[in-house]
């Protein structure tokens, strides 16, 4: 009767429906995204940090003015994802890219779909493709993905 060789497994889901307050600095960034633009913040020595932080990560100084950047930028680094996983923002092959927006001094992580890694290169110019205005909520996914400017790498 006792089959001690039984092996069990079960699907579990752990879920927390968090909503968090974002504060004035990140709030300015998300408000910008919802309104279809990208903003950064000025840190020590006037450098522009995107996405904005409450303090300069190098010096700890408080950051000051919110400034518009981009919308175009340059790819500073990237990583190719041939087989996206279920929670990835795109379900077709894509590159994680670090983008330094025009007018910014730091890079911002997002995605760029492409048919292969040979379409992605450090130094290429890209621009964000925003979701339609009615669908934007103030979230990083208000930028659907990036596209190459002027015909790719």
């Amino acid at each position, binding site marked *: *009767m*006792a*089959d*001690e060789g*039984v*092996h*069990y*497994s*079960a*699907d*579990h*889901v*752990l*879920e*927390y*429906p*968090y*909503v*968090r*307050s*974002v504060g004035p600095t*990140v*709030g*300015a960034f*998300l*408000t910008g995204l*919802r*309104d279809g633009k990208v903003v950064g913040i000025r840190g020590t020595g006037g450098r522009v940090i995107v996405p904005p932080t409450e303090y300069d990560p190098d010096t700890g100084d408080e950051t000051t003015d919110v400034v518009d950047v981009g919308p175009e930028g340059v790819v500073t680094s990237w990583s190719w994802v041939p087989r996206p996983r279920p929670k990835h923002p795109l379900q077709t092959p894509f590159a994680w890219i670090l983008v330094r927006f025009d007018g910014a001094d730091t890079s911002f992580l997002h995605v760029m779909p492409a048919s292969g890694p040979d379409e992605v290169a450090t130094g290429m110019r890209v621009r964000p493709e925003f979701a339609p205005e009615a669908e934007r*909520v*103030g*979230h990083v996914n208000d930028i659907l993905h990036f596209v190459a400017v002027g015909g790719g790498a």
Partner: protein
Amino acid sequence: MSEPVTMMAAPMRLDYVFTPGVAQGKNMHGLERGVFIGQRCPKCKKVYTLSRGSCPTDGVPTDEIVELSNTGTVTTYCVVNVPFAGQSIELPYICAQILLDGANLSFMGLIQEIPAGEIRMGLRVEAVWVPPDELGPTMASVKYFRPNGEPDAAFETYKEYL
């Protein structure tokens, strides 16, 4: 322009497959058959209920499988009076540590069929299982414990298990 963004939905979700492993699998296989399984330590001879497969005192595998009794003793308890989110049992109800006969480790179970005011240490109880066709490899196979009518156990018999 509309109002500034002040809040952000940040749901967290983890989908995963839980594999209980050999030792807990044996316990669950027992629950699936309506039987409590104990695992005996070869050194200290203690019988662990819901064993994780090793003796915490001796650090050796608890290889010997023991079928335990359907009856046990309430060693200690808590009467739940405070409503909370996700509560599924009518208040007040009793949560008790139950030491099954033949076991050396108690576990927590729900007590029903007794007024909350009559619960006591030493109460003798028996497990009430779901109908046979609803049994599964889960503690949900045990509906609850209820008094089995025997005289209360003497404190001496369970004082080591509090």
